[in-house]
């Protein structure tokens, strides 16, 4: 392992939360992985967009609501959350249905900026094509 290597890691999220554990355990990897100083981004494609909807309430299904954790990603310098526009549209959702996930930009006097980047399928295809490591759960 060459010390200085920086790879582009993308976590590809395509499943709704709670029906399966993948969303939760994916988030656990993202948080641990933040310590490794790689170039990290997350993609929410298809049903993956439900992972970051506003107003999740799990009190009646006996599971922990882990959605607030996405708000902590900025503190770990994870600031690129790509959401596919077409996936939202097909599902009757808009960016207003998603949480306001933000980060503070240290290069811009700690201004608060949105972490969610809604992109078209074509734009997302370009981003994916530029990755080194794609983690899919």
């Amino acid at each position, binding site marked *: 392992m060459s010390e200085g290597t920086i790879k582009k890691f993308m976590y590809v999220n*395509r*499943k*709704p*939360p*709670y*029906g*399966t554990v993948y969303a939760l355990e994916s988030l656990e990897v993202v948080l641990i992985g933040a310590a490794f100083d790689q170039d990290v981004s997350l993609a929410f494609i*298809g*049903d993956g967009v*439900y992972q970051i*909807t*506003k*107003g*999740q*309430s*799990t*009190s*009646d*299904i006996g*599971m922990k*609501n882990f*959605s607030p954790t996405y708000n902590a990603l900025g503190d770990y310098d994870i600031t690129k959350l790509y959401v596919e526009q077409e996936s939202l549209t*097909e*599902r*009757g959702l808009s960016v207003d*249905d998603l949480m306001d996930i933000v980060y503070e930009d240290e290069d811009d006097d700690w201004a608060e900026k949105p972490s969610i980047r809604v992109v078209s399928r074509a734009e997302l295809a370009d981003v994916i094509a530029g990755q080194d490591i794609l983690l899919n759960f």
Partner: protein
Amino acid sequence: MLHTVNKSPFERNSLDACLGLAKAGSAILLIEDGVVGAIKGTTIESKLTETMQSSKIYVLGPDLAARGLSEDKLVDGIQVVDYGGFVDLAAENTAVQSWL
């Protein structure tokens, strides 16, 4: 007959399989990840509206809430039930088919 569908209609074909084989007069209950199909403005809304002309569609409220989908977004005519309502549906219908 009660039919349960637990997968997203955008990712799997289980709702389609259910709708193709459920007779008129069926009760169809969306649970787990299946609840995401129940809201307005999706690519499958018209399919649900058509189904409700001859069958009833229900959605499990606790699973809807977990995924951040509020009841005011539901397709008109879909009824919300809790786990007690799920039990009632199972009891009222003579058999249950889970579209796994």
